[in-house]
């Protein structure tokens, strides 16, 4: 059984002191340990951004790829080896900006892995530009007159019939660790948005700002009602809901793939000779007389 120390950082952590990302790291380590997963069973995939550094800070397999391209890599890695527990992580710019097309398509496709977005409502690694989730009026160097209209990722998720849609807050480690566990356990694509204060570049959406607004979904909230979930997913401003906003048990993409039925793709042998019959198909049969 892996312990928290097995998930210790694999290199020096380069985030700012006080960054919300630390809480997410702690929660992730706890969740992985609680699920009884060992580092070598886990593949973390990320893009570029402060959040993109995440996988380097705990022991697992790591593919730290391009800005915005986390989901295609994770999708294919999972399909190639569906025994891996695949977790994709990234920032709001990475996931909702550059990666927006992959985001809506991955949710629709429903491959069984977890996607966690560290939403700090800003482009942090590039030193503070507006992100797709920046609140209207948020002043940055690229938006000196204030950011314009935001995307609502959870609403998009519900529109894409994403099979698990949740939100948590990096400062509430217990809640977050629990949500991550639920997400990993969920069969299907699990999207988790984590509110993550950036102490260096977002002086509006601070710890206090979030703290004042977040609340946990009521016990009797029914996450299986899509239209109600949509309404809940739009809630932002004075009150921001945390918890599992939407859930369904749609069929999982890779389960319909005949190719994976016997064993993971990576474990299948390669045999050129098996293709003989395809050559036959293309062979021009010489005329068989009297037929």
């Amino acid at each position, binding site marked *: 059984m892996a312990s928290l120390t097995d998930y210790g950082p*694999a*290199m020096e952590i380069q985030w700012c002191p006080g960054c919300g990302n630390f809480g997410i790291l702690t929660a992730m380590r706890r969740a992985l340990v609680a699920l009884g997963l*060992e580092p*070598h*069973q886990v*593949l973390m*995939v990320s893009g*570029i951004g402060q959040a993109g*550094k995440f996988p*380097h800070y705990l*022991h*697992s*397999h*790591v*593919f*730290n*790829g*391009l800005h915005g*391209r986390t*989901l*295609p*890599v*994770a*999708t*294919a*890695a999972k*399909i*190639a*080896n569906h*025994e*891996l527990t695949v977790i994709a992580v990234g920032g709001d710019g990475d996931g909702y900006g550059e990666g927006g*097309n*992959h985001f*809506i*398509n991955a949710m629709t496709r429903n491959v069984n892995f977890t996607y966690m977005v560290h939403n700090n409502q800003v482009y942090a690694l590039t030193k503070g530009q507006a992100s797709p989730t920046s609140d209207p009026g948020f002043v940055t160097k690229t938006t000196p007159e204030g950011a314009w209209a935001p995307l609502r990722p959870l609403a998009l998720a519900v529109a894409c019939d994403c099979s698990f849609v949740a939100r948590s807050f990096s400062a509430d480690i217990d809640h977050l660790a629990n949500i991550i566990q639920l997400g990993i356990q969920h069969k299907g694509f699990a999207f988790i948005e984590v509110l993550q204060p950036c102490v260096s570049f977002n002086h509006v959406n601070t710890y206090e700002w979030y703290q004042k607004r977040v609340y946990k979904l009521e016990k009797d909230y029914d996450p299986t009602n899509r239209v109600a979930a949509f309404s809940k997913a739009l809630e932002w401003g004075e009150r921001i809901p945390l918890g599992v906003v939407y859930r369904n048990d749609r069929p999982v993409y890779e389960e319909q*793939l*005949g*190719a*994976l039925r*016997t064993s993971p*793709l*990576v474990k*299948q042998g*390669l045999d*050129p*000779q*098996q*293709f*003989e019959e*395809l*050559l036959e198909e*293309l*062979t*021009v*049969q*010489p*005329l*068989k*007389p009297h*037929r």
Partner: protein
Amino acid sequence: MPAEINLMVGGEAGQGVQTIGFILAKTLSRAGLFVFADQDYESRIRGGHNFYRVRASDSEVQALTEEMDILIAIDQNTIEFHHSEIREQGVIIFDQDKVRAEGKKANLLGIPLERLSQEKTSNKLMANSVAIGAAIAVGGYEFALLEQTLKEHFAHLGKDIIDGNVKAARAGYDHARQQSPGLVRPRIKALNQATDMMLLNGNESLALGAMAAGCKFMAGYPMTPTTSIIEYMADKGRKFNIVVIQPEDEIAAINMAVGAGFAGVRAMTATSGDGFALMTEGYGLAGMTETPVVIVLGQRSGPAVGLPTRTEQGELGFAIYGGSGEFPRAVLAPCTIEDAFHTAVRAFNLAEKYQIPVVILTDEYLATSYQTVKKFDLSQVKIDRGQLISDEEASRLNGYKRHQFTESGISPRLMPMRGKALVVTDSDEHDETGHTIDDAVMRNRMMLKRLKKSDGLNSEFAKPRLYLKPDAEMTLVGWGSSFGAINEAAQMVEKEGLRVNVMQFNEIWPFPAQAVTSALSSTKRSVVIENNATGQLRRLIRAETGILASGGILKFDGRPFSPKQIATQLSKEAA
């Protein structure tokens, strides 16, 4: 001298031109002939003008020719556009009720195609088969050959359709023989009745090569001319546990291929120029993370959307220099349809051995041309996965560095979840363990490690194919799909007394500079023949060897070279 027969069928998109052409090609293959066939079509589903050419010979053929013996004109335009391409003694087959051909310099074989179809099958829609029957009759072949082909071709459509088409074809066959016996040609006989011949196009050949090489994952967004690779693999791959995904865009496609490659399967994608443009970021990602991946870049006429259904060799420079920063890569360009199979196998082996992205440069012409080739010998397909750590070794691993420094620059590769060691890689510059770094010393070492792999590649790279003749005056240089046309052009000019060598590139990058230098110095003159407007190979040769070829023959109208066009130009060059 080889004997041959050339047929063309023309009509609007949606009139069945391609089907007719393919059935003719197959029937003539079945007669034991060597066949080469290609279509010319527009980016539309109905209307416009398409045509299909079939060349059949008692000797091997690898290109088309311009002069036709038989023209099937499905519509009037076909006659207007192509009558001048008919050889003396050639025959035009057409529906006498619909098309006018008077005054054209050819033998006219007007047949009431639709009427015959209606008469014999109570369905005028089988008129095309009537025409096919007539063409086979004029060619001098037995009907049984065609009957067999029709039965195969329509097998999936049920007995009524099969019988109808056979009847219609028979009617056309009989009509031609009875009404115009004088037009029936002496049949060309197979010289050495080849057995085990396949009739397939470049895309099928390439897809078969990829599958035989063990490709398990293909992600591709449809784009002419490589769509049918994706489609063929999606269809046939089902039986062989190959996953084929059509993702949201080309960016997803390349990143998926990289993800699958990282996880440990042989993975590929296929696209054409504009799609490749979108993939260049992922191309560099594969280079940086040392992830094997195969990218088929099927060139078509650019820039931008260009002529989407037409051919070009306009992306050699893009494949070699594309991508941010500098990383090792291999660029291969299959020269023939058969080659496409072997090149695909080679691409996967190189990709895994050197842990690099490999680009296969094909083009619309190679992709869609059909040829009879000897059935591939699958027992000869060797799969070399390079330094892939076995399960047994993996279980004994004590720590693992994905990007370990080695003499060759190649680091032993571990699949995630084989054993307990962790596999870490990064698109940022990294150290041996795969974690991000920022210091100059490590950066330098890592760059050199990666680039070192080019040396290995270079040393095992195939030389360009050389066809050297003593006392040749000129070397013809080409790359990729133009091989057939160049080769035949060489034979043509030889007949006129010009002795030429041929040097054709398949493995272009890393550039085999030494071999090229010595080859080019064997003749006084060299002419680089390319299907593009700026002479990309010619410039590359100069960049890598300093040698400026004395001439260049360029064609960029979207159509492939014909041997004759090249030969004519060469004669001018030589004069």
